[in-house]
């Protein structure tokens, strides 16, 4: 890939390893994932790693936000709250950053880029939770007033 920062290429090269490690430790990432089959877990992890890679390459926040909204919405149907979904995404990024540090001990930019992506992810989810909190709070007076 021409002109792409080295950490982007490094992340892409690490992706298969990160995916394998995630599947291996999935029970410790989130107890709910332990119940998924390896294939189901792989599908979810792959989607998250793809979203991280897209963010690193394109820097496109709108796309990333769209992915996160879908991720959180789908997790909510599994009974997983947005904060749990957030911690899961951060745990995935942590695993990726740990592997990056181990594979590139002399180049801190890879792990740093992943940490920044994790912080942006956590921030976007907080924005989403705050937005929903504002909406639901606005619905309270009408809901309470609907009672006799």
């Amino acid at each position, binding site marked *: 890939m*021409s*002109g792409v*920062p080295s950490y*982007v290429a490094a992340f892409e090269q690490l992706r298969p390893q990160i995916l394998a490690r995630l599947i291996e430790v999935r*029970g*410790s*990432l989130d*107890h709910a994932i332990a*119940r998924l089959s390896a294939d189901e877990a792989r599908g979810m992890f792959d*989607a998250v790693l*793809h979203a991280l890679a*897209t*963010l690193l*390459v*394109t*820097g*496109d926040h*709108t*796309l990333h*936000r769209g992915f996160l909204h*879908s991720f959180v*919405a*789908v997790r909510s*149907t*599994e*009974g997983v*709250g*947005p*904060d749990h979904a*957030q911690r899961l995404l951060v745990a995935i990024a942590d*695993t990726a950053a*740990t592997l990056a*540090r181990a594979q590139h001990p002399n180049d*801190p930019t890879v*792990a*740093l*880029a992943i*940490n*920044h992506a994790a*912080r*942006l992810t*956590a*921030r976007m*989810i*907080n*924005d989403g*939770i*705050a*937005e929903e*909190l*504002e*909406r*639901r709070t606005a*619905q*309270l007076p009408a*809901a*309470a007033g*609907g*009672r*006799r």
Partner: protein
Amino acid sequence: MSLVVAGYGDSHVGSVRDTNEDALIVDGKWGLYAVLDGMGGASAGDVASTKARDVIHEYVRARRSALGPRQLLEAAINAASAAVHGEAQRRRDRRGMGTTVVACLIDGRRATVAHVGDSRAYLLRDGRMHRLTNDHTIVAELVARGAIQPDEADRHAYKNVLSRNLGAKATAAVDINEIELQAGDRLMLCSDGLYGYAASEAMHQLIASTDPAADVVRDLIDAALRGGGGDNVTAILIDAGTQLVPRATVVLRTSGAGAWWARRERLLAAARAHGIHRSPLCAVLAPDDAIALVAGNFADAVYHDLEKATSVNVWSFAENLAVGWLGQGGAWLALRELLDGLGRSADTVIGELRAEDPALAALIEAALARALVTAETAVGGVLAQRLRTVEAELVRHDAARARQPAEVTAKFIDHPTVPYMRAVDAPTEAPGPDVQHLLEGARRRALGRPAATSDRALFTRALEHAHRVATAATDGGDAALAARELFDVRSLDEAGVTPLFDALDAARAAHVDAVRAVPGAAGGKVAALRRLTAAYQQLSSTIASLVVESVAPTAEALREAAAATASLRAQVTKNERRVADLERKFATIIDDGLPAGMRFDLGLDPPARPRDPSKPPPLPRRRPSKETLR
């Protein structure tokens, strides 16, 4: 090569309970560690847990050399269950007492973990925390089977009901797990008073620190007490060998923490330059105080975390900030900007350090980047908890609307839905004259007594209906009709249904006493009581059936809603794949078109414009651009 294993444990009564019904074993000589959490009224739980603890400890000591670890733990725990069960049978005030147990036996490099109940074991390895035990509770088993969602588990009516414990029976079904320990592993055994009240992120951070086990156990108990301390708290930490600390961590804990502390004033100056004191969160503070309080506490939290190679202090800092600000109605945007300001202030300090020591600066930058992620997740937890509270309030209002009496229009008797009682046996003949006479006497006597219930009218109706059912020749039809008349029109909630069962119970008690008291031959009284108790059994059972049938539509509505959700979810998942495919093409376009040397700088963009739910979503306005950041 064997590992040097050392354990430390402690227990606390908590902030709410009067007695500590937890017990623990920390026996390094025999390699035995255990946490037990007793249950049962009037200190019976204390008896159960200490009894089980003593039996397990003695059993292991006596038979350590005779049995393998797996068989030894299983047999010891079963012996404890038999002992607790026996004690429970001997004394009426100890009936139903029991205890959980999670025990670990270390033999060389092998750890055998056995448990019954909801006390837990965790393993920390390579910075990741693994739960080694599944809770033996009804809700945990329902979640495991997919019968309920994890989110529902905390709200479930039976969330505290164990599916297994020691003492319910003479034997117990024990789950056993064996692991090979590695140097640096850390095991934790704990009661639900810890994980039920301490945030799991805080637990992880504390256990993952390189602090001695005694300090970590104390901090864990503190975390549970700060989280409410509604139960007894017990934790044991077992360290297997010396932790292998990466060199980078050693550097951070020493030079890194020192370098950060040396620049504390620099951070406060940077915070002032970035306008931290002008944040709405600091509105009631003088500028110097605001800087000292907010930026100063942030600087101290970062320092302590660098020193201990953890993020728990930044976690607490961010959580307290969020709880305090949001709790008084503060806006998220203000908190967001404050966190950004602190992040930029830290960047300034790191930038200056980079000029002197690039390698150390890189280490601190990485640690700080991770700490700020922790800060965001700490705040996320607070935001999500507030969202859950508001949603629960909305649900309550919705439920209250559903209970409005105006919605209850039809009388059940006009719309029979419950089939007549099945003919269990051949139709009963009407009672003979002497039994009839006894029943009539009992009815009058019972009616003349004060009702042990607040609704005298309902008590009287229940008694009269029971008498009619008892004196009729019936195949169950009379009971069904009587039940419908008694049910009448009432709301389908606890407030509507409980008075009916109360009235039936009170009527039954009065009626039975009256049969005993009324003059008559013993044989006749027994026959009368047979009919009467059968009548009350049929009435209460039919009323319960009516309730069950009446609430059936809510289950149907839930099934329909769940199906609609599943359909939407499938659409989202399908679309996500399409988006991902296009993103790959889009990314390739960008890759090929990048000027060489362009640096991507990931930062935090301005907040998305709040969406007005009354307006349709915005149409695409522009072609995508690289959103590089300043």
